[in-house]
C-alpha cells in the first residue's frame, strides 16, 4: 500500500558520494510545454472552424483539453518510469518491439516534422512579418512573401532559425524561451487590457481606419461581414454535439503538444517524479489554454464573434477559392487587429513583435525534440554511428542535417505545389498515430515491463483489479482513435487528408515505407554483424 505523505523523520541516509543532477529544470520543461501548445497554433487552428460553423469552438476546446490532460498523465507515467532521451521511440521499442518504436517515432518525430517547417513559417510570416511590413508601408515585400518564392524563402528562414536554436544547445535555447515567454506575456497583457477597455464601436472605427490605410479597403468591418460572414456562427458557445466533436481534430492541432518535450526528458532534472511531470506539462497546457480562451472572450466582447469568424472565412475562402470576391483575401492577424486599436504605428509594431516572440521561442522545438529521437535510434544502431555525431560544442550536426535538408525539399513542394498545402493536417495525424501507440504502450506496461513498472514512482492504484493508469491510457487511446477515424475516414470531407485525398495517402505512405525500409535494412545489417536489433531493445534477464 502506498500513500503520499510528508515524512517527519529521516527516511533516507545518504553518504558522501558523487551526486547527480540533469540538464533541464522543471521550469524549463514547463516553458517548453507552454510554447509547444502555442497560442498562435490555436488561433491558426480556429481558421478551420469556418468549415464547421455548426460546432462550438469553446466546448470543443474544453473537451479537447480534458482528453489532453489524460495524455499528460500517460506521458508523465512513461517519463517517470523510463526517463530516457528519445521518448516515444525508447518506450515503444522496449514495450512493443524495436520495429514498432522506430517506424512510429521516425515518422512521428522525424519525417513529418519536415512538413511542420512551412507551417511554422506560415505562422511567423502571417502573424508577425506581414502585419509589420504593412504597417511600415512595405507592401511590395508583404505581397512577395505571399508568392511561392516568398513562402519558400520564409521556410528557409524557419529552417535556419530552428537550426540555430538547436545549435546553441539546450541551455541557450532554454534561456531564449524564458525571455520569449516573459516578453510575449507582457505583450499579451497589454493586448488583453486594450481589448477589455475598448468598446465595439471604437474597435470598428479603428479597424476601418487601418484597413483603409493599409489595405485600401473602405468600411472594412461591414464589408468582411457581407463578403464572408454568411453562415458563420454567431457565438463560440453554440453548436450541435456532433459538429462540436468534429472540431476536436482542429483543436488537436493546437492542444495535443504539451508532451512535446517527451523526447528530451532524459535531460530534465527530477524527471522520475511523476507529479512534477504532471505539473510542468499540465501547467504549460493550462497556461496557454487559459490565455487563448480569455482572448476568445475578449474577441466576442470587442470584435464580435461572427466578425472574427468572417475574417477567418475571408482568408480560407481565398485560399481554397470558394469565395469569389473576398474583402481582403489575405490573413488578417488577430494580433494585428488588436494592435490597430491604438493609432500609432510604432506602438503597433512593438506590440505585434512582443506577442510574436511566442512564435519564435517555439520555432526551435521543430528540430530539438527530433534530434533526440535520431540520437536514440543511432545509439541503438538502427541508424549509423555517424548520425549521433556532435561537434566539440555539442551541436548534433548530422541529426540537424537529416532534419534540415529534407525540410528544404518538402518546403519546395509546399511553396510551389498548391495541393501540398492541403496536407497540413497530415502533420498532426502522423504524430497523433505515434501518440496512440505510446498510449497503448503505457496501457500494457504493468504487465509487459513489470519490473520497470513496479520500481517506478507511478501511482499503482487499482480499480476492480485494473491499474488506474491502464484505464487512463485506454481512454486516451480511444480519444486518439476517434481523431484518427475523423481524419482518415473524413465522413463529411472536412479535413482533407483522409483516404479520399490521394496525395495525402501517397505522402504518408512514402513516410511509413521509408521508415520500414530503414528498419529492415538495419535489422538485416545488424543480424549479419551478429547482434540483432531486438537484443538491443530487449531487457537483459535479471535472474
Amino acid at each position: 500500500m502506498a500513500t503520499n505523505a510528508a515524512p517527519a523523520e529521516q527516511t533516507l541516509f545518504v553518504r558522501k558520494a558523487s551526486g547527480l543532477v540533469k540538464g533541464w529544470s522543471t521550469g524549463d520543461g514547463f516553458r517548453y510545454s507552454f510554447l509547444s501548445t502555442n497560442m498562435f497554433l490555436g488561433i491558426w487552428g480556429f481558421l478551420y472552424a469556418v468549415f464547421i460553423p455548426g460546432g462550438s469552438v469553446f466546448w470543443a476546446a474544453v473537451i479537447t483539453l480534458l482528453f489532453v490532460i489524460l495524455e499528460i498523465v500517460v506521458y508523465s507515467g512513461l517519463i517517470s518510469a523510463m526517463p530516457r532521451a528519445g521518448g516515444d521511440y525508447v518506450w515503444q521499442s522496449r514495450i512493443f518491439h524495436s520495429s514498432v518504436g522506430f517506424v512510429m517515432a521516425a515518422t512521428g518525430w522525424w519525417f513529418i516534422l519536415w512538413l511542420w517547417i512551412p507551417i511554422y513559417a506560415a505562422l511567423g510570416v502571417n502573424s508577425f512579418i506581414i502585419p509589420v511590413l504593412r504597417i511600415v508601408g512595405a507592401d511590395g515585400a508583404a505581397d512577395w512573401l505571399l508568392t511561392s518564392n516568398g513562402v519558400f524563402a520564409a521556410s528557409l528562414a524557419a529552417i535556419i532559425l530552428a537550426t540555430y536554436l538547436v545549435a546553441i544547445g539546450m541551455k541557450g535555447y532554454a534561456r531564449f524561451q524564458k525571455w520569449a515567454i516573459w516578453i510575449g506575456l507582457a505583450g499579451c497583457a497589454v493586448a488583453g487590457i486594450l481589448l477589455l477597455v475598448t468598446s465595439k464601436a471604437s474597435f470598428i472605427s479603428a479597424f476601418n481606419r487601418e484597413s483603409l490605410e493599409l489595405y485600401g479597403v473602405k468600411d472594412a468591418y461591414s464589408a468582411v461581414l457581407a463578403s464572408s460572414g454568411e453562415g458563420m456562427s454567431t457565438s463560440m458557445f453554440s453548436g450541435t454535439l456532433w459538429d462540436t466533436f468534429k472540431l476536436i481534430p482542429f483543436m488537436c492541432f493546437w492542444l495535443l503538444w504539451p508532451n512535446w518535450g517527451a523526447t528530451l526528458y532524459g535531460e530534465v532534472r527530477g524527471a522520475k517524479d511523476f507529479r512534477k511531470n504532471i505539473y510542468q506539462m499540465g501547467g504549460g497546457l493550462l497556461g496557454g489554454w487559459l490565455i487563448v480562451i480569455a482572448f476568445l472572450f475578449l474577441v466576442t466582447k470587442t470584435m464580435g464573434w461572427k466578425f472574427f469568424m468572417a475574417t477567418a472565412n475571408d482568408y480560407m475562402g481565398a485560399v481554397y477559392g470558394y469565395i469569389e470576391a473576398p474583402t481582403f483575401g489575405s490573413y488578417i492577424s488577430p494580433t494585428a487587429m488588436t494592435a490597430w486599436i491604438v493609432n500609432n504605428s510604432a506602438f503597433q509594431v512593438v506590440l505585434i513583435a512582443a506577442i510574436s516572440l511566442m512564435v519564435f521561442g517555439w520555432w526551435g522545438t521543430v528540430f530539438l525534440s527530433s534530434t533526440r529521437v535520431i540520437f536514440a535510434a543511432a545509439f541503438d544502431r538502427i541508424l549509423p554511428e555517424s548520425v549521433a555525431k556532435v561537434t566539440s560544442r555539442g551541436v548534433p550536426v548530422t541529426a540537424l542535417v537529416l532534419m534540415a535538408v529534407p525540410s528544404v525539399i518538402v518546403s519546395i513542394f509546399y511553396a510551389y505545389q498548391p495541393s501540398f498545402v492541403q496536407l497540413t493536417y497530415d502533420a498532426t495525424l502522423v504524430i497523433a498515430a505515434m501518440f496512440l501507440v505510446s498510449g497503448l504502450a503505457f496501457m500494457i506496461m504493468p504487465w509487459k515491463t513489470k519490473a520497470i513498472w513496479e520500481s517506478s514512482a507511478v501511482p499503482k492504484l487499482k480499480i476492480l483489479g485494473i491499474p488506474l493508469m491502464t484505464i487512463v491510457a485506454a481512454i486516451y487511446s480511444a480519444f486518439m482513435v476517434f481523431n484518427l477515424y475523423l481524419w482518415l475516414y473524413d465522413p463529411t470531407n472536412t479535413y482533407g487528408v483522409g483516404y479520399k485525398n490521394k496525395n495525402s495517402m501517397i505522402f504518408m505512405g512514402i513516410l511509413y515505407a521509408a521508415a520500414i525500409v530503414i528498419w529492415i535494412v538495419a535489422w538485416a545489417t545488424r543480424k549479419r554483424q551478429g547482434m540483432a536489433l531486438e537484443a538491443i531493445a530487449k531487457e537483459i534477464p535479471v535472474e
Partner: protein
Amino acid sequence: MSVRLFFATDVHGSEACWRKFINSGKHYGANVLVLGGDMTGKAVIPIIDNGGGSYTFHMQDIRRDLDGADELAHNQRAIKDHGYYPVVMTGEERNEFTSDPDKLDELFHQQMRHTVEDWVTWADERLEGSGMRCIVCPGNDDRPDIDGLLASSSQLEVGEGNVIDLPEGYQLASSGWTNPTPWDTPREEEEPLLKARIEGIVAQATVSPERLVMGLHAPPYDTQLDVAPKIDWESLTVEGQNVAHVGSTAVKEVIERVQPILSLHGHIHESRAAVRIGRTLAVNPGSAYVEGTLSGCVVELDGKNKLKRYRLTMG
C-alpha cells in the same frame, strides 16, 4: 578472431544492474565483460519495524506500509534493485543513526561489504564454466577494502591499478581514481597525481596502442563524455542551468599521448556518448541504475588492429 567486449559502469549498489551485468555476456554475445567502477550504493533506506510484522519506509517521497514477511522481502529486493540498501531498524535506532555520523558510517560500510560479498558469490556461481572473462574495477565512490573482497572471487578479476591480458593479445589497463569532486570521495586526487598514477599503470602494458584498452573511471576533460551541471562546491547545490566539463585533464592527456584503440569511462551518468580522440574511441555509456536499467556499450575488436563496431545499449 574478434573480441566482443561489453562495458557497463556505475551500478551504484543496484542489485538488478549487477545481475544484468553478469548475465549480459550471454545476452549480447560478449566474451569479455568489464565493469567500470562505482559498484557501491549511496543511500540507506531505513525500514522501520513497527512491531507485529508491520513495517514502514519511504521511497521517492512515497510512504509504504508493509504487512508481513513476504511483503518485507519483496520490497527489500525492490529497494536493492534501485541501488539503495534496505535496513530494518526500530524508530529509536533510526534516530541514533541520524544523530551519530560515525555509527551511520559504520552502517554504510557494513552494508557495502555485505552486498559486494553477496554479489561476488552470485557472480562466481553464474560465471563458472561460462568461458567468459569478467573484469571489475572499483570507482571513486568505492572504498578501498572493496578490492580485497573482489579479489577473493574465483571468477572476477580486479582491474584497479593493473594491466590485464585479454583474449587475442589485447590488454586492459584500469583505474577507478578520478580528479577531485565536490564530495571528497575515497579515490580522487589532484590532476598531476592522477596523471602519474595512470601513466604508471599504462607503462605496465606490453602491447601496441592498437591492442590496448584503457578503463579509466574519470572521463576525458572537455568532451561529450564529461558534461554535468555546474555545482557550487561549498553548498553542493546546482548553479541554475549552467553546465560544465568536469572530466579529467590527466585522462585526456594520456589518451592523446598513448592513443589506445579504446578508452572506457563512466563517472558522469548523464553524459552518455561516444567520441573519437584521435585514433581512440572513448565511450561513456552513462548510468540509469536507479531504474534498474543497465546502460552499457558493446564493442567489437577485430583481433588485429581495428575496432570493428560499437553500440550503446540499455538493457
